[in-house]
């Protein structure tokens, strides 16, 4: 998810600067997977709900890494997707949004530890919507949040439990995440990347 208006003035970095490359993204996800296991004392009772579009492949990657550590776990049974479009509070500020899929693992979310997964944490409004959406699906024992990038500028009392990288930004900058699963039209050679745009000094 790209957030924030286009354009300038980053104190740090150059226009379009890459802040995370493929290797760094993999490393961050590996660390987050371990932190999830450590904090929850294993994978049992965990559900990873990715928020479309880019939260979903990240959730799948986290599940795969968890399965590497705990071979008994079927990674596909850990992952679901949670579309929050119909719970957003800013629908009237944008053209109509296309609704994504919501699919919950067969066992549901009741009494599970749900880890919400998204690419960028910004104002917190998407996560607020996700909490509401989750509420309509069932009653988890606990809800945690994992994000690849936390760029700050929260507008709600929400914080991430697992962060790939804390990235101080100005409001005028744009954070772009591209993943090989979700951005094939960016070219055949797409590699995972996180960049900051809008670097006019």
């Amino acid at each position, binding site marked *: 998810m790209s957030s924030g208006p286009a354009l300038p003035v980053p104190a740090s970095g150059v226009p379009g600067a890459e802040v995370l490359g493929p290797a760094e993204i993999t490393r961050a996800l590996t660390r987050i997977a371990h932190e999830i296991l450590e904090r929850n004392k294993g994978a049992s009772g965990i559900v990873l709900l990715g928020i479309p579009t880019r939260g979903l492949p990240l959730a799948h990657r986290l599940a795969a890494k968890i399965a590497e550590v705990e071979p008994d776990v079927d990674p596909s049974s850990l992952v679901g997707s949670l579309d929050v479009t*119909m*719970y957003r509070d800013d629908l009237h500020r944008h053209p109509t949004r296309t609704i994504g*899929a919501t699919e919950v693992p067969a066992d549901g979310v009741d009494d599970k530890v749900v880890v919400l997964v998204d690419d960028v944490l910004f104002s917190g409004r998407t996560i607020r919507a996700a909490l509401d959406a989750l509420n*309509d699906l069932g009653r988890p024992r606990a809800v945690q949040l994992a994000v690849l990038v936390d760029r700050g500028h929260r507008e709600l009392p929400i914080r991430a439990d697992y962060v790939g990288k804390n990235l101080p930004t100005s409001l005028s900058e744009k954070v772009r995440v591209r993943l090989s699963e979700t951005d094939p039209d960016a070219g055949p050679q797409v590699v995972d990347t996180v960049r900051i745009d809008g670097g006019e000094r």
Partner: protein
Amino acid sequence: MKHLLSAGDLDRDAAIHVLDTAARMAATQGREMKKLPTLRGRTVVNLFFEDSTRTRISFETAAKRLSADVINFAAKGSSVSKGESLKDTAQTLQAMGADAVVIRHPASGAPHRLAHSGWVGTSVINAGDGTHQHPTQALLDAYTIRQHLAGGPTHDPTAEPDQRGLGQDLAGLRIAIVGDVLHSRVARSNVQLLHTLGAQVTLVAPPTLVPVGAQAWPCDVSYHLDEVLADQQPDAIMMLRVQRERMGAGAGSGPSHGTGFFPSPLEYTRAFGLDARRLRMLPDHAIVLHPGPMNRGLEISADAADSARAVILEQVTNGVAVRMAVLYLLLAKEKETWA
């Protein structure tokens, strides 16, 4: 898109987008918690100048599942019946803060007038106007057909029913629409929409119930149901309701009713009714649709209506999801200014 007045308002991509959105909506309707907060604070008015409990309830359910406030205004029976009153009624409702007006009206074009005469600035959704259009009915029919038949045998049988056919059109499907085409807004809407989605439509009716000018429609016309069933092997067959007052001499009274459109109900059923014999002529995968309410024994026999092929109750269920999608697409976006 600000209004939905006609199936002709939708091109292929827009129609698929509505159907896909409906599939997302349908997925939420299997949950214990069916209500979504999406249209909280929005007000939808059901403005019905004609009785239609089914359609009104379907729209009402759709709006409420999206948390919109619903005002039902049944104009039929009140002193409101013609002329200036449509304008006055609509303006009154807008003054009360309506964001969308769902209108059912006996006059063809009334929703078009409401949307384009400058009377009101709300979104207008046509819930059936005269003998013109009923676009949400066509959408729910297309949705039902797509769910069962799109993609042919290659479709993923393991997919959730709601998600079957996502992103697809109806290319290559043969669909027969049978009955009173002349007076049917359902037929007009379906011919347009199903054609837009790539299906091949054949209208089947006695010549008296095919409008002059229908030769310009993007479909075939036949007067012989048995031939169509045998030669075309339709994938879906849609039976239209035959109104009692259209029947043979003796039905109704007054100069306008002296002459029926066909000699007798019996003759109609013999030539155009869907019965067990005709049901057996259909290919195994074919489905039977009916917009309801049915005249059992006239255009459709109990055998056909209650057969496993019949998807008539699914149509009702899908109607809610399709109308949720339409309300979402028209209302959950930036408010346009109408200065």
